[in-house]
């Protein structure tokens, strides 16, 4: 009989009430802290501080409310692995999107306009763009106007006239850049 009772009984790890109330109080306190810090102007550090507080709060929720501290460690591994893959996903995507303007900038600022290098890049020199309409002019303008990289990016982005960004951007600029060649 005792064996049967064991089979259907459950030995739970029951946390004392003060743990839940203490963690909950800390979470509410940290919410007030993050609001207070946001009122102080710290430039880019505002984002870092806000994210650090959010991560701290999330860790408290995970460890105590979701019992990761006490449960089977496999659950923690599943949780952390999802965050790891999310980190890979976001960081590799940002490597692309944050650098997207750079290539247009390099192409648009030839040190020596008639250099052979530009033939292999299939890009017309800046002075060859006269009399052509559309994206070449836009891309050249955005790049030669001496904007910083973010400016160039923004212009390249707007050039498509929509928000889908990505592949359309690239396709648009590429065709625009090639057209003067065929025109000559």
């Amino acid at each position, binding site marked *: 009989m005792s064996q049967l009772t064991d089979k259907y009984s459950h030995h739970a790890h029951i946390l004392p009430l003060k743990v839940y109330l203490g963690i909950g109080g800390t979470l509410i306190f940290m919410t007030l802290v993050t609001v207070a810090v946001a009122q102080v102007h710290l430039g880019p550090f505002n984002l870092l501080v806000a994210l650090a507080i959010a991560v701290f709060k999330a860790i408290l929720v*995970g460890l105590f409310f979701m019992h990761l501290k006490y449960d089977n460690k496999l659950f923690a591994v599943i949780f952390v692995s999802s965050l790891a893959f999310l980190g890979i996903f976001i960081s590799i995507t940002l490597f692309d999107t944050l650098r997207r303007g750079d290539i247009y900038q390099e192409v648009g600022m030839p040190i020596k306009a008639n250099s052979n290098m530009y033939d292999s890049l299939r890009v017309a020199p800046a002075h060859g763009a006269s009399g052509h309409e559309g994206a070449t002019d836009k891309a050249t303008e955005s790049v030669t106007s001496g904007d910083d990289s973010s400016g160039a990016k923004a212009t390249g982005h707007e050039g498509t006239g929509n928000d889908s960004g990505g592949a359309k951007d690239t396709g648009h600029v590429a065709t625009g850049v090639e057209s003067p060649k065929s025109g000559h």
Partner: protein
Amino acid sequence: MSNNQEHKGAHPPEWFQHHFTDAEQQQESAKLGMWVFLLTEILFFGGLFCAYAIYRAWHPDMFINAHTALDWRMGGLNTIVLIVSSITMAMSIRSFQLNQQKQGVMLLVVTLMCAATFMVIKYFEYSHKFHVGQLPGKFYTFTGIEGTNPHIFFSIYFLMTGLHGIHVLVGMGVIIWLIMRAKKGHFGPAYYTPVEVTGLYWHLVDMVWIFLFPLFYLIG
């Protein structure tokens, strides 16, 4: 009342599924399944967090200008409401572990009330934005925000808080189901797995909001 606390005799309790070795294994399996589901949820929200990162990096000033359209007091209040609901959810599980069914049901009801409060505050925020035209994409008609493409901010805002809101609504539905089952006496120290895995889901929804709040309401 199907009392799950007494297992005299050869018949296993109603909640016990025969393909498990024992109650412990059944509960661990259920939690494992829930964690795998939460993993997919994190990746589900993750795509939107990625979109947020890309567009905020592309338009940093526009995000700062556009976020002033959000009221941090509403967002902050909602953060506290959700944290309170997470506390009561965790305490409810504890009550069932300690065989305090009435208290457990009461705490589930408080959790449900908090979730409803969250949605009511969200409704006021949304309806104001609908009214002034701070809407996603082509529906954006507001003119008071400087910077490139402020509608992008509201596209991401509505997608992320909207998906989160849907999760709160789903959670409310599940909590109602839990309350109905708990009132029938289905849960006790031997079996409270549905309450526990719903708790895991609910805490994840809280966790997502912990990130959404500073990312939308407290920029710059």
